């Protein structure tokens, strides 16, 4: 049990916000976390930028490119967030691609997460099978939960397997798509939400990819335990800066 699990026990309609570390400025990480905490979000995802973020859409990709050219890297991120818990008690997740973690050393990476009191990881290019076979025991050792994605195309059998391996929540990808803001959800998406809900999975579900406004937030929350917002927040940071966070979050509720 860690902060993520507790959040799902204690709260409803969870709002989890993603941002890319090092964007817009290299040193913005802690300020953004503080703002998010103040604005009443339920969970925070820190994106560790990667040169080739192939599961991400143009917005997050661009923020990653800028973050990297700002000089962000794994060491710097861990250094920035070493006092994380002095500013927030929200569950904090690192979202990143596998290669930078491998280069850092998986065990080393987990150790650092633990030191910074990170609660979990989302690694889009680490398939559940490989996680299960090679990584789970290491992650456990450092009390890190790993979250998996499911999509409208994921088979029932596989969803059950993911549910079994999941220790915190399942990331329900809203549509066939890379990350990126959408305005509304179509019938197909809503049917998919309903189909998954009927499966009565043990892990809670957060809907991500394409949440951008009150409307998509509401529909997603009605059909799950909450939402994850990424691109829309990055767009907000880009156009209005960190100070606009509170207003952005309020606009979603």
């Amino acid at each position, binding site marked *: 049990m860690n902060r993520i699990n507790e959040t799902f026990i204690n709260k409803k309609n969870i709002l989890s916000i993603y941002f890319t570390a090092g964007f817009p400025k290299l040193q913005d990480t802690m300020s953004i976390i503080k703002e998010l905490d103040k604005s009443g979000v339920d969970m925070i995802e820190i994106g560790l930028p990667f*040169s080739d*973020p192939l599961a991400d*859409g143009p917005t997050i990709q661009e923020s990653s490119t800028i973050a990297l050219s700002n000089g962000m890297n794994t060491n710097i991120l861990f250094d920035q967030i070493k006092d994380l818990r002095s500013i927030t008690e929200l569950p904090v997740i690192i979202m990143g691609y596998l290669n930078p973690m*491998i*280069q850092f050393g998986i065990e080393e990476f987990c150790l650092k997460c633990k030191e910074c009191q990170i609660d979990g990881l989302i690694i889009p290019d680490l398939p559940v099978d490989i996680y299960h076979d090679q990584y789970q025991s290491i992650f456990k050792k450092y009390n890190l939960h790993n979250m*998996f*994605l499911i999509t409208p*195309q994921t088979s029932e059998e596989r969803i059950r397997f993911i549910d079994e391996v999941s220790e915190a929540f399942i990331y329900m990808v809203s549509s*066939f798509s890379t990350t990126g803001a959408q305005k509304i959800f179509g019938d197909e998406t809503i049917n998919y939400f309903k189909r998954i809900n009927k499966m009565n999975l043990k892990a809670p579900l957060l809907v991500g990819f394409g949440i951008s406004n009150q409307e998509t937030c509401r529909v997603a929350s009605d059909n799950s335990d909450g939402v994850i917002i990424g691109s829309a927040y990055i767009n907000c940071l880009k156009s209005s800066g960190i100070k606009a966070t509170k207003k952005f979050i309020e606009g979603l509720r």
Partner: protein
Amino acid sequence: MKTHNVDSKGFYGEFGGAFIPEMLYPNVEELRNNYLKISSSKSFKNEFNKLLKDYVGRPTPLYFAKRLSEKYNTKIYLKREDLCHTGAHKINNTIGQILLAKKLGKKRIIAETGAGQHGVATATVCALMGIKCIIYMGEVDIKRQAPNVARMKMLGAEVRPATSGSKTLKDATNEAIRDWINNPVNTHYIIGSVVGPHPYPDMVARFQSVIGEETINQLQEIENKSKPDYVIACVGGGSNAAGLFYPFLDNFDVKIICVEAAGKGIDTGESAATSILGKTGIIHGSKTLLMQSNDGQITEPYSISAGLDYPGIGPMHANLFKSKRGEFISITDIDAMKWGLILSQTEGIIPAIETSHAFAVLDKKKFKPNDIIVFNCSGRGDKDLDTYIEYFKL
């Protein structure tokens, strides 16, 4: 004996696998479940072989390069993939994959391309089958490789610029993968080399293995021997090399040489010699050797040849390197360009600059008079004329 071929889980030794986002899982799984079944069916084989023969122009000759052999006092054969329809080995693979895509009921094809050869080969088979085709190509490469862009358009393909990152092959690949994520049901992604998640490296190697298989038959006919002493090929992603090496992977009498692009030199920071400069990591869904920063960010390689500047190599090749089954030699721009001219003027064959790299091994290594050396002449140089012209001030 340990095999150098793929294992049942999609690995070559420690390399390979399918490190893909869940969004791609159904697509890749569908392929993994079907590629062997379909491609070994009689009807597929018939159709594949018929197109290779009547459309691609196979078998490509195994040409004894008389003047070159005399000059280097050894027996040099060229496997003439430059004579394939569209001008390189790439089409062997696209023919295989388009047939597979058809059997899987796909209605839309996407592909990435760097130099444009794979894009042209893909656009070609899509025109042949009347299937919609979208090619992702880095914005920078679109400018560098105008003739191939024009060819793709003539063939009815849509060429979409990749504007992210360094705007070259790696980024075009990212864009293609994103497209596939967004269109998982009706679309097949034709990867152009032995890279990407399993089953791509194995699938592409199998479609290309006709190169090596023909070589065996042809050597038998010409030299009354079924195996050469050396097989030599350039390695970008590694598909032409994989195709030539395939039947010899576990036959240690046949020495394997992989030729990488050293660019301006290994130590200049402008190079594409992955085996020397790379470390194990994950790129485009595969665990393999790749060029990256200490931090794990994938770095942009450099080579004068657009087909060799991929930051990784296929997992088969990573394993050939690691196990020392293959010898890896890297060749600079300067030497490759020199060999483009040498081959042109000694044998009347203008090679692709990728291909030129392979031949430069003749200056790096001594061969015995009776050695039978098979070079994969992977493509013709027409696409590179501008580069040759400018370089040599022709």
